[in-house]
């Protein structure tokens, strides 16, 4: 044996080594503890009212979005058009799968370091980002550089204002944290060759038409809509029916959900969704989201479908459709309409805004502000519409560039005054998860409609009421 087997007490050197290791661990821990306070200020930092001097050096302006056709459209459009004004700037739109979108942005925000300069946030993410100080307050910048009168007030509020505006309004005294990038709402997609040229006007009529169409056309389901428990799929579906049947998601002023969501109108909406609409969907469609609904329409497997307008472009591509060999042939069979009304004519607000990361470098923040100012100009908004985007300025929405670009664009313009959003609060991610999983459970027979809705209301209320100081926050 080269070394004696050590037994009993440690040698002085051994003790020293262990003590040193322990000291390193403690020191690292203390250092890390101390490091926590830096982000504790809360609230968003302010962007300057005027755009700072821009760099002439090569610069990449990075966005983060989820992977869908508008993301590529934005990158192509911005690189082509913005280069005319800023040739030294390259636009990069980084994408992640839809299900990872929130996590991808907020884990970087949590690290207080982002590899993107502009976060494309869902309108409901704003509360979380503002409260945590992750994005810039651009109120002064907007007042100085943006023609706010050019927008429908609610669109401007929905993609930028916090605290959240009341449905259909904008609080001019509230701060703004973003500007519209892509407007969106649901469109009703219907088979003209199966149910006729005129779309149903009421929700009840729509269900009857779908029922008859399904009975008359074996192999084709009456309806196709989002039911998945990921992202906000099933939640948006229920919220849409809830709005149409006169329900409310919450009382924002009193932060009350229990008793508001699950009131009589709410229960009626859930009953319609689960007992009248679900039986008209394809078997196994309980995990369908955007792509699956589009696939069902493109393969001629649905009489009536609901989907986001910005995701509907592929339906007219003959290479992806069995409905025709040309765009015209497909359009002979497919019609696009605003959602039917019932007790109200509300439609879901979709789309996203641009928000400047508080952790981007000063040069990139300045460039981001310049890009946003450029993007919100009337002419650029029209060009964005021609490139496949959905603008937000009223003049662009009513322009031939937008209305003639796609057959469903008129649906968006007609829907603007009918929009309603979800809760824009820091607890959004948990609220939407509770609603998604419970609506999905009801749609797939795991819970009864009443049980599911009461569970949503109770669990969401407890999220709003919970205090993390007691422990167990998030459960």
């Amino acid at each position, binding site marked *: 044996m080269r070394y004696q087997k050590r037994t009993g007490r440690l040698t002085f050197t051994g003790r020293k080594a262990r003590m040193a290791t322990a000291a390193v661990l403690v020191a690292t821990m203390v250092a890390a503890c101390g490091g926590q306070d830096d982000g504790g200020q809360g609230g968003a930092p302010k962007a300057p009212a005027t755009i700072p001097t821009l760099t002439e050096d090569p610069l990449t302006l990075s966005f983060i979005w989820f992977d869908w056709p508008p993301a590529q459209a934005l990158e192509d459009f911005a690189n082509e058009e913005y280069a005319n004004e800023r040739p030294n700037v390259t636009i990069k739109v980084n994408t992640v799968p839809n299900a990872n979108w929130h996590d991808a942005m907020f884990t970087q925000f949590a690290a207080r370091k982002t590899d993107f300069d502009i976060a494309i946030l869902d309108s409901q993410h704003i509360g979380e980002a503002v409260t945590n100080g992750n994005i810039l307050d651009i109120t002064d910048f907007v007042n100085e550089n943006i023609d706010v009168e050019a927008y429908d007030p609610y669109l401007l509020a929905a993609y930028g204002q916090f605290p959240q505006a009341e449905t259909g309004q904008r609080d001019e005294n509230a701060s703004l944290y973003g500007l519209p990038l892509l407007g969106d709402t649901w469109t009703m997609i219907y088979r003209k060759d199966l149910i006729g040229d005129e779309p149903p006007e009421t929700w009840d009529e729509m269900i009857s038409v779908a029922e008859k169409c399904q009975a008359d056309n074996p192999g084709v389901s009456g309806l196709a809509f989002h039911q998945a428990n990921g992202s906000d799929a099933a939640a948006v579906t229920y919220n849409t029916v809830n709005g149409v049947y006169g329900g409310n998601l919450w009382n924002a002023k009193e932060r009350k959900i229990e008793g508001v969501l699950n009131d009589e109108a709410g229960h009626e909406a859930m009953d319609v969704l689960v007992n009248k609409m679900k039986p008209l969907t394809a078997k196994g*469609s*309980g995990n369908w989201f955007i792509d699956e609904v589009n696939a069902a329409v493109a393969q001629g497997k649905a009489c009536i479908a609901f989907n986001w307008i910005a995701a509907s472009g592929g339906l007219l591509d003959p290479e992806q459709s069995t409905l025709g060999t040309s765009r015209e042939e497909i359009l002979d069979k497919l019609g696009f309409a605003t959602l039917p009304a019932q007790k109200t004519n509300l439609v879901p607000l979709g789309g996203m805004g641009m928000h400047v990361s508080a952790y981007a470098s000063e040069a990139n923040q300045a460039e981001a502000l310049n890009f946003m100012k450029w993007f919100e100009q009337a002419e650029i908004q029209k060009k964005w519409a021609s490139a496949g985007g959905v603008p937000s300025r009223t003049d662009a929405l009513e322009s031939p560039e937008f209305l003639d670009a796609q057959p469903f664009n008129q649906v968006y313009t007609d829907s603007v005054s009918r929009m309603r959003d979800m809760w824009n609060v820091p607890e959004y991610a948990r609220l939407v998860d509770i609603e998604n999983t419970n609506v999905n459970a009801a749609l797939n027979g795991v819970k009864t409609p009443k049980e599911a809705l009461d569970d949503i209301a109770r669990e969401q209320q407890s999220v709003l009421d919970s205090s993390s100081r007691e422990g167990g926050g998030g459960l």
Partner: protein
Amino acid sequence: MSDSAPLTTDRPVQVASATPPAPGWSRRLSDRGLAVAFIAPALLLLLAMSVFPLLWALYLSFTDYSATRGGPAHFIWFGNYTAVLTSSQVHQRALTTLIYVVGAVTLQTVLGFAIAYLISRRTHGRGLLTTLFLVPMMLSPVVVGLFWRFMLDTQFGVINSMLGSLGLGQVEWLTQQRTALFSLILVDTWQWTPFIMLIALAGLTAVPKYLYEAASIDRASEWFRFRHITLPLVWPLLLIAVLFRAIEAFRLFDLVYILTSGGPGVSTETLSFHVYKVAFLGFNTGTASAYGILMVLVVIVLTQFYLRYLNKLKED
């Protein structure tokens, strides 16, 4: 300058063993110092990447810290632990995880051992067969999840298409409460049965031939040989494989994420998937840390019991 050790020798083994440590080193660095210098990088890496995060998570588990909200972490002592242990949501996920672990590991053990037993009895093509069976294990769980998701799709999936051609009806593999969990077990079994097979095959090939020869001379039946020679000798190795698989299955996340996203409802949400939601949807870092620590503790305690049983088995 002292003499240096010879670089080459005609009798390397003998000379090398007799050569004293290079005196040049001893003045600056002792052998022990040299040993510490060699292991220090690995040790520091381990401390930085494993030990520190674990201790840090332990610290956070006693606080209300949120990674996104920032601000100082307030000590709430065992508040998070109490909340996790008494949460009905956690109990539900624990039951789902238990059913999944027992179902998947049992199925994999039976199938893996059966395949290994059959392969071990072949004399030709054993290597090729083993390699082919190992292919699923080499794939990324995300890739496996994605292609099984397509295959199990009720409307467009190949599995239902095959069932249809046999005159059977459509099965909602991923959207019904019972079939969704079964589908997860099925896919995990497809991927990880080869692991059990591999370990069992190693055990089977290590069984001394003379035992079988002696049994043949005694005209012992196939069942007798299996029951009294094969199984007792392979059993300890198989139990180790089961241990590894059970630990892996206990922390299942990727397949759930891709195949069912925890649905329908939350009926296929496992503990790991739930921790992920607590950690990244609400960014309740303190609670998620306590949840994770408790999961580690459960694994450690159960493993200890299991290893004791294994040691007892060896001693017997």
